[in-house]
């Protein structure tokens, strides 16, 4: 190994070490600050230096070029670095200035059901730009897992004895200590309290499931209590009884937005976007990010994250080369040596 090559290797080790230290430090900063750190101008210089050293290494180390595994891994690192830089915020700034593009690197599009939008905003709602086409939301759906258990009423008495009971309206249960008869008089999917303090069921999908209980005490006194699944402390009294309404919280299985893309050329394209299944159109990828309901109208809306596809092919090619190169270098060559009874690499 020549002195230049050794220096180069030391430089790579030093830069890798610096990246290692920065990564450790970045993990304590939280995602936004870490992202800002790694996208800052000093780090842009760092990434260019790393790319330069990789190119210099490929040029000066003949061994690197002759061994397919090593060559693939180093080319992969270059491709990933190049692709990531091209797709980064800084990369977009440069491309927009040089090529006159108006591509937004990433952001969010919020669309209500039955409406269309092309406004890209930041997470905080600031306008970042416009898509060169609009997206209309045909329908937003949430698919749920079947509930893992039936809703139940749990009663714990003074001696910590537990009774788990079905929540059928009209069912009565006798508790011995303290002695009382408990009757379920009503079940609510969405318990709400009106302006006149009257309690009513808003219906629809269960958003505040609750039970109304009547307690018939031996003294003849009758008492009503509301037991709310999501507010277990509500309705509890210091009388030796504890009620809990165990409600199987629905677990979402998938979120799906059915959209129509209205292009500038007048063509409309339908598509669906769900978690892990993004949609690609005209230089952008759309991902299912969030959802909600308009508080006034109750209309569902979807939030799609939008990402420019700049640099994507280079990064993906780099990924494939990196995996292939590592397997080739670390496994294929020694395996070949083992099975042909030759001496393994570097042994």
């Amino acid at each position, binding site marked *: *190994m020549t002195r230049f090559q*050794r220096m180069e*290797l030391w430089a*790579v*080790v030093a830069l*890798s*070490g610096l*990246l*290692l230290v920065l*990564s*450790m430090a*970045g*993990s*304590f900063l*939280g*995602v936004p600050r*870490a*992202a800002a*750190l*790694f996208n800052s101008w000093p780090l842009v210089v760092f990434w260019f230096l790393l790319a330069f050293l990789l190119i210099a290494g490929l040029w000066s180390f003949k061994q690197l070029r002759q061994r397919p595994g090593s060559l693939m891994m180093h080319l992969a690192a270059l491709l990933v670095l190049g692709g*990531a830089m091209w797709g980064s915020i800084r990369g977009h700034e440069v491309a927009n200035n040089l090529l006159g593009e108006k591509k937004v690197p*990433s952001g969010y599009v919020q669309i209500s059901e039955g409406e269309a939008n092309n406004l890209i905003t930041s997470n905080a709602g600031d306008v970042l730009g416009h898509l060169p086409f609009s997206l209309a939301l045909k329908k937003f759906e949430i698919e749920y*897992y079947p509930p*893992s258990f039936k809703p139940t009423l749990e009663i714990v008495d003074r001696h910590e004895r537990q009774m788990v009971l079905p929540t059928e309206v009209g069912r009565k249960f006798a508790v011995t200590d303290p002695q009382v008869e408990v009757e379920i008089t009503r079940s609510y999917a969405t318990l709400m309290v009106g302006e006149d303090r009257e309690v009513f069921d808003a219906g629809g999908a269960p958003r505040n499931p609750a039970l109304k209980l009547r307690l018939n005490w031996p003294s003849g006194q009758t008492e009503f209590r509301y037991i709310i699944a999501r507010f277990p402390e509500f309705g509890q009294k210091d009388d030796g009884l504890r009620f809990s309404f165990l409600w199987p919280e629905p*677990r*979402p*299985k*998938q*979120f799906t937005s059915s959209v129509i893309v209205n292009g500038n050329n007048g063509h409309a394209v339908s598509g669906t976007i*769900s*978690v*892990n*299944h*993004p949609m690609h159109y005209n230089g952008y*990828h759309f*991902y299912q*990010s969030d959802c909600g309901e308009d508080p006034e109208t109750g209309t569902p809306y979807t939030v799609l*994250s*939008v*990402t420019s596809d700049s640099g994507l092919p280079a*990064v*993906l090619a780099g*990924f494939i080369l*990196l*995996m292939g190169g*590592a*397997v080739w270098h*670390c*496994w294929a060559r*020694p395996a070949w040596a*083992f099975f042909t009874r030759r001496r*393994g690499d*570097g*042994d």
Partner: protein
Amino acid sequence: MAIKFTLLGGLIYLAMTCYLAAAVLLAARRKGLGQGVYFLGFVVMIAAFVVRWSEVEHAPLQNMFEVFLCLGMLIYPISWFCRRFLRVGGEAADAGFIGVLVLAPAGFVFSASPEKLPPALQSPLFVPHVAAYMLSYIILAKAAVQAIAVLVGRRQSDVELVSYEQGAYRIAKLGFPLLTIGLVLGAWWAKLAWGDFWSWDPKELWSLVSWLVFLGYFHVRHMFGTKYPRLNAALVTAGLAAILMTLFVVNLARIFAGLHSYA
């Protein structure tokens, strides 16, 4: 810390007992019997993995309990492979040290309550990404045990096996491509699920740290070969420390809030 009075808990404790017994027998040079008991522990772990799979109705690689269950199952085939193809021993340490240590969190610490897969985890990349990482972690843990033997000044007495330094190198070469595949598939999956290959999340950063430590190790070993065995061994051990940080501390310490809170 809680004992699990379930079939799954029983299988985990039985496997731990087998691994401990195998370690004692192998250390006492009762090779045949030790290997047999070690294999029995592996069979028990396969049964535990199958039971868990049928309970949760998806590949049990979702949470910390399932991850450690998987790691406990993988140690035997790795030990066998390393001896058969790489001429690296250390089965007593694998069973008694790595095997028992990775099963202890599953047996006593983490909750086994089954969970449904959230939408983000319903991806064809879920199993290959996590499986590649689990395999690489257990392999690199074995590499680190060989490296620790170098650091404490032990010498390989079995002439059929390579030196501890050479053993650590061979095993690290076995585990590094899997670590790379895990990292790349994770980035690819993040792109499909969240739109970004990389979010500078603590888990991602520490998995990059683990990868960089091993990358540094291979470069240093390329530069100096076996001239500085303790430096090589220290780097492999540091790699394991970074893996432990990624697997344990980042998930459990509240200072590391990120996107991988379910992992």
